[in-house]
């Protein structure tokens, strides 16, 4: 029954404060299955906080987040096995090689697509023998994205995934997102500042401001309504909504 839900992730009345600062203020949102959603917001708007609440890494003071019908805070191992997550600053053990890191991560998952990882590693120039401590931020980001794809997640959540990538790596990454989204009911949520990336792959866009989602809808509808490109729409909403 839960698997048949239309929405993969939901947030209802979510409030998250850090000390006196309220970052999420009664936020309601639902991410439909099979969509590719770009999450936009100014610096400090709370995009990372929202993603972490949705994933059950932060505990809201009020409201509830759910993924695959389960409460995010108490996600089962089975539900987690269906999620891929790339944090803004990927964490890894600097003494491991990339190959060891992949092997280590793979061993947690009931299923792992070695062929996919090998192919992507070749295409993205990720060298298995490189030590993680020696990777540049961009190489690290590539390796982290690779790891998030190994178990072919139904839901892929990426927090500013392209920030450290060079243009070629960004193009390859977006290509993978497009491929992934094209396969069945997979859902992708990613936060970004690069609106051109978002325009290339997202079918929906959400705009976070003042601790709430002030706009969520189809990308084309937004552009039609605003009569502007996405970057100008973003600026317009940032100023006036």
């Amino acid at each position, binding site marked *: 029954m839960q698997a048949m839900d239309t929405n993969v992730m939901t947030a209802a009345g979510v409030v998250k404060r850090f000390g006196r600062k309220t970052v999420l203020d009664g936020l309601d949102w639902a991410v439909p299955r099979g969509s590719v959603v770009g999450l936009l917001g100014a610096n400090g708007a709370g995009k990372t906080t929202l993603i972490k609440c949705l994933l059950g890494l932060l505990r809201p003071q009020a409201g509830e987040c759910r993924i695959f019908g389960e409460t995010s805070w108490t996600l089962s191992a089975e539900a987690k096995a269906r999620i891929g997550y790339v944090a803004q600053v990927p964490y890894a*053990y600097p003494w491991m090689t990339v190959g060891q890191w992949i092997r280590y991560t793979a061993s947690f*998952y009931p299923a792992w697509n070695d062929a996919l990882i090998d192919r992507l590693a070749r295409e993205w120039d990720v060298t298995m023998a490189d030590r993680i401590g020696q990777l540049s931020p961009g190489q690290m980001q590539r390796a982290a994205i690779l790891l998030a794809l190994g178990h072919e997640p139904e839901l892929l959540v990426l927090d500013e995934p392209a920030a450290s990538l060079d243009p070629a790596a960004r193009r390859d990454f977006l290509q993978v997102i497009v491929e992934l989204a094209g396969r069945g009911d997979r859902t992708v949520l990613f936060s970004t500042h690069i609106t051109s990336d978002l325009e290339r792959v997202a079918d929906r866009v959400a705009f976070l401001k003042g601790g709430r989602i002030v706009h969520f809808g189809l990308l084309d509808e937004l552009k039609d309504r605003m009569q502007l490109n996405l970057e100008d729409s973003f600026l317009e909403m940032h100023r006036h909504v």
Partner: protein
Amino acid sequence: MSRVRDPFGRAVVSVFQHLASPWFLGVFVGFYAVLTVVVVIVARVASAVGRGPSFLAAMPTFLILSVWLFGMMLSLHVKKQFSAPRARLLPGFARAHLAAAGLWLSILIAVPFAGVAGLPGFPVMGTVAFFTALAALCVWIGIVQAVGLNIAATLGFILLMNRPLWVQGLIADTPPVVAAAALVLSAAALAAAARWLTRLHEEVPAYHREWGMRTGADLHAGRARAADAATHNPRLSRYATWLMRPRWLPPRRATLREPFLREVRRLMAVDMPRRASWVSALMFVVLFSVLTRVGEQPRPETFLPLLVVLPVTQLSSMWHARASGFGQELMRPVERSRFFGQLAAAWLAEMSNAWLALHVAGVALVLLTWPDARFWLTLAFPALAASAAGNAFLLANALYWVPRARSGQAAVFALVVLTLPLSGWLGVTFCGDGLRTGWLVGGLIALPLLSVAIAGSACRRWLRADV
């Protein structure tokens, strides 16, 4: 600080702020500063009324501790300031910060000068030369941060602390000319340290060496350091290669099966250092052997606190270093309770190993080196029980404090503070040539009860923690 506009003033204040943060460190520093002033005044007054000798005999230990403690804090702070790009990019940065460090160092050396210089057995030149040399040693240890130098210096420090009469003899009997030469050499070493700091850059291996209580874990952080160093020097030493090899990795294509508790625990432990427990034991054996070799026969009340505090501080700093990645580790297909449960189990297993290794080493050394070993071994079981209870208490506190502390250093400092009453209890229980059974039994009842209560609270905290 923002109100101080002069770069030198700002640098002076930054050292003060470093010493006073976090607040409990500030309280400790403030308390110690007041204590120092009181001790210095009492030393002068006692000497003036003719009751100096017995009081002055204890002064070297106190003054060495003061200069060492604050000298290390100061040099670590200065090293941190200079191992950042701004040190080379901001105009006037180096001059202002070196002048500020010089001022603080002068105050530090002025304490023994004000305390004992000129009193019987403490000639001015000898006193100033000895403590300036000690301060220079602290500065070099703090800025270079080489493992071998750290270990050698720590052993030297413990020896000096334990041999106040030898120190007093050295200060009193050194001819003024030799003392003056030592003073000049120490000043030159300090000037060389300042010059070295101004030339520090990213390609110097020491630039990346960072102290924190991560160092305690740091066979663990040693891996991170080795990885950092490898960036600049692709030819790794055998030690670094050994350090960076994972202690266990599942075979390729292996995935977790049900029931997989043991496998999760092994996976959780992958980030832990290789054989840290046995290396700790080895360090303890070296320390113990050196003390014995120079005629100090360590007594249970002396070395038990060390045995109690070593494994916990090491492993709590390891946990703290890893905590920054919990958010991403928790997204692997393991429930939150199982993740923290198995991580704690892996941690406990590592700590038990460390505890066992240290105590095996301790008992073996008593048997091999002490002339009255048979008598001391009658205390072995009470000592083991007391040590186990003490470790459990510290471990429970570590679990509770680590997520609250802002830095590994702060977390370990909280543990060190807790160790003081614990050391007091061990000292009273094993003081003299025998055992005070009442104190032992009281502690063996109270400590486990407290540990269970604190550990329960810590578990609830972890299960509700934002990561």
